């Protein structure tokens, strides 16, 4: 489906995990202490707990439920209930390609055939959730079917989350305060129109 922006790089600090969603697919985003970003399916293979609620230690992510620890390749490396057991290779979190570029975190759910789009030179400002389908946002900005929309003062990058809602990631060329207010007004107008 191509690369989808799922958040601002600055909003995911080292040692943090957080949830994201693309077209109904739940993701756990996390940043290792080294700074590397990862996007995994948001469920622990053990008992289905969301990995986005887990905790990061060094280059590993652990599930909060039973502490199962996963290496950066998604393979389970430690099961605390059985400290002497070497976990079988079959126990593995679902991993997706994930790249940080232009101040945003990008995820590709399918095998990547390209790189994330090059963004115009602008500063990543903020992400907003909008209670309307992603197509409504593109239509409102008169850029149907586009996922990166340059309005002049701002660049808006779209993320479909599910049928009825989406996220937008806003980059500002100048005047971040004004762009931030503009983005909030945009959200309000789109949601009012959708309702």
């Amino acid at each position: 489906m191509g690369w989808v922006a799922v958040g601002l790089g600055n909003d995911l600090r080292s040692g943090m995990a957080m949830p994201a969603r693309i077209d109904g697919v739940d993701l756990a985003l996390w940043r290792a202490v080294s700074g590397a970003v990862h996007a995994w399916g948001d469920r622990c293979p053990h008992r289905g707990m969301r990995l986005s609620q887990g905790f990061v230690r060094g280059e590993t992510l652990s599930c909060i439920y039973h502490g199962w620890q996963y290496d950066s390749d998604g393979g389970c490396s430690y099961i605390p209930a059985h400290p002497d057991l070497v976990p079988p290779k079959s126990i593995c979190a679902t991993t997706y390609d994930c790249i940080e570029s232009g101040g945003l975190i990008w995820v590709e759910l399918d095998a990547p055939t390209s790189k994330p789009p090059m963004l115009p030179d602008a500063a990543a400002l903020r992400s907003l959730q909008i209670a309307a389908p992603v197509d409504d946002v593109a239509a409102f900005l008169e850029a149907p079917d586009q996922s990166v929309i340059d309005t002049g003062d701002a660049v808006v990058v779209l993320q479909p989350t599910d049928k009825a809602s989406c996220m937008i990631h806003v980059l500002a060329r100048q005047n971040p305060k004004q762009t931030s207010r503009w983005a909030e007004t945009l959200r309000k107008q789109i949601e009012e129109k959708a309702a």
Partner: protein
Amino acid sequence: MRPEIENHWYPVAMCSGITTPRETLLLGKTITLGGQPGAFWVRDAAGNNLQVVERYGHLWTSPGQPERPLFTIPEAEEQGRRLVDCGSIKVRCSPLRAVENFLDIAHFPFIHTDILGAESHTEVERYDVKIREDENEVWATKVKFFQPQAAQSADGGITTDYMYRVAAPTVSVLYKTCPPRPGAWDVITLFVQPLTEEWCEVWPWMALYDDTTPMSDLVSFQQMIFMQDRSILENQIPVKLPLDPGMETPTQADLTSVAYRRWLKKIGYTYGAQVVAA
């Protein structure tokens, strides 16, 4: 609804909490309950009276024809125990996930950190699990776990012995080391009312040998533990409990959960379960 699901006893209220008649949900259907001790009643939406039993602090009913009388907990009848009504907590999860979490000890160090478990002691040793055919119950015995503060009455860390019992599809009873009375078991239950397949009301109840801890402390200890569990239960995917192997990955520490799922499948209890692997 199928008899395999209807023909069981379900908790629907704490007896001491019934004042005026009120509506609630059982297996997705509205029921009404009310009355006084010794004369409680439950009616379905058509106004038919359902069977009722008052026992273990709670009002039990069945929308069907249970094949057995309500389970018993002989230990809870012993003289000198304090019977603790813990109130209820509504949880947005499958009733079966709530029971399964109650049967699990490996999460103690991570969810009930420094209370029921500690990250320095995470190992789960082998224990025995059996489906008891005569009683049609699941039992786990010889379960041991190190606990920094096993109960409100515990002073410092101890290795706690446990037995777990699934007495009905949505009822679990645990027996654990009783710090003030070596040789006896404290009884802690989890009575789960299936409101729908993905929403339940959980009624913990206890029968303890503990003459000193104030009642309010006993209740708030149990409430705190269950609030910690709720943070897990509302974040499992899928919401329903997968009964077929393949979707989730158990280890030896999960033998109770494996037996519970197998037993549910065997008796055809699929309410709150995901039967086809997604």
